């Protein structure tokens, strides 16, 4: 049976890095987690990238997302958690190193992995639709001093202007959840432009 997975990620990891809201702390607590078996499968996103979702062996609430491009080995791996906040389903992603990256100790020691959050819009038999939290919207709120949530501004070495600044949320999970619950329904928070479609491979 051929199923189409519509998994939405920003087209590639590079693009994804630039457009997602990064947080040092997870957006969920253990009490919020849910597990849906229908996610366990092979999926293809709207840009033709292949994704495999498998359960994490040591856990009954965690998923492992494997991103394949050209080789048999996954190029990126994420630990994903589905969780409920105020009756709305969300997905938290957290990167882990693949086998080749894991060997690059010096490189890994310089990285601080971050969590990202997406609202799950749809989970049906052969289709999943998610929307990333709008990084541009959040960036503009920070720039305009309109939002108060713990964060740090990280400047790259070759920063050209403010658009190159990276905002990293440092708020606690409790604060992150309060913010998502209160302002998650804002028009600009989770917009269509940030939607990723995953279709089930058939």
């Amino acid at each position, binding site marked *: 049976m051929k199923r189409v997975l519509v998994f939405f990620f920003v087209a590639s990891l590079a693009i994804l890095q630039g457009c997602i809201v990064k947080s040092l702390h997870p957006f969920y607590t253990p009490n919020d987690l849910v597990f849906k078996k229908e996610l366990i499968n092979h999926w293809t996103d709207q840009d033709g990238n292949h994704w495999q979702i498998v359960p994490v062996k040591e856990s009954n609430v965690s998923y492992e997302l494997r991103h394949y491009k050209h080789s048999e080995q996954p190029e990126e791996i994420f630990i994903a958690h589905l969780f409920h906040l105020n009756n709305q389903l969300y997905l938290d992603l957290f990167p882990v190193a693949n086998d080749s990256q894991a060997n690059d100790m010096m490189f890994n020691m310089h990285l601080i992995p971050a969590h990202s959050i997406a609202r799950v819009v749809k989970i049906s038999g052969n289709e999943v639709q998610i929307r990333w939290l709008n990084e541009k919207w959040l960036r503009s709120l920070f720039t305009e*001093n*309109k939002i108060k*949530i713990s964060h740090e*501004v990280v400047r790259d070495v070759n920063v050209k202007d403010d658009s190159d600044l990276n905002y990293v949320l440092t708020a606690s999970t409790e604060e992150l959840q309060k913010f998502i619950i209160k302002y998650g329904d804002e028009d600009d928070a989770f917009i269509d432009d940030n939607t990723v479609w995953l279709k089930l491979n058939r």
Partner: protein
Amino acid sequence: MVEVESLNQTESGRGHRFKLSLPVSLFKSVYVQLAFWTSTYFVLLTIFSTSSVWYHIDYLYTGIFMSTMMIAVWMNAYLLIPRMLQQRRYLIYLISVCITIIATVYFNHLLFDKLIDYILPGYYFIAYYSLLDLLKFFGVLVALATLIQLTMEWFALQENTQSAILLQKEKVTAELQALTNQVNPHFLFNSLSVLYSLALRESREAPVAIMQLSDMLKYVIYEASKRFVPLGAEVEMIRNYIGLQRYRVHVSTKIEFLENDIDPSFPVMPMVFLPLIENSFKHGTHSNTNDAFVSIRMKTTSDDMEFSITNNRMLEESPSTGGVGLRNIRMRLDLVYKEKYELNIVEEETNFSVHVKLPRLYEEN
């Protein structure tokens, strides 16, 4: 001869009570308020800052947050403390302050959870702190403000009390001086009368009498204004007075002054016994009988001293216990020794006695 009883009566206020005004709450002063809230603001700003840099949004949030704390602190300062704590209604105060804190904590939470979106649309705030955390914030600040307020009021009260004590002391000193000053002219006039008699008789004893009066005046000028003098100096003064009086009284008059058993350093109020001695010489030695006498005895212990004086009295003489001179002594003793002294007057058919017992007091008393 000037009579001792003709001393002017001073109706200075004995037992005057100071009415302390309530301490003015210095906490209400603008400067203290400004300092307190400025400090609080920056402490809160440091705590609330969401990153290593203070942003405009942090200033705004801290200001709004602190304004809800002001409600609790001001209610406590201007309503609960004056009306309950200072009225010693401790339990009601405790309950009220708890209710105030809880109410303002809920208001703070509601403000940042809901109301802020209507007050400041376009800004994104959440209720960052749990109710328990807010209770800690508000409780600590209200407790701190209460401590500051009570401490400052305590200092103000201490200052007022010190001023009142000083004022009272000055008043007592002034009253005492006024009463002592009443005594001086009388013994002076009595003594001058003696000198006048000696001068009329061209007595060779006049120079000695003048020297005795001179010593007495010296004592009055330099010692009588003090609160306490050594008993030895007072005894010397009495000796001089008796010496002068001997020129005046009949040779048959028996004058006895026993003061061997005293501690000369014993502190005693100056000029306290002189009116009694003047009184005795006036009433006892005026009689025409041959058994006129004045007997004075003094003795001291480590804790107190006793003075007693007895003189004969004429049968037709009216009782003198209510005399102005005795009243003057009572008032002076009241001012200095308060209720710690004894003054007993015994009027018998032929004798009149006064017994005084004074405790050992020091300057600070």
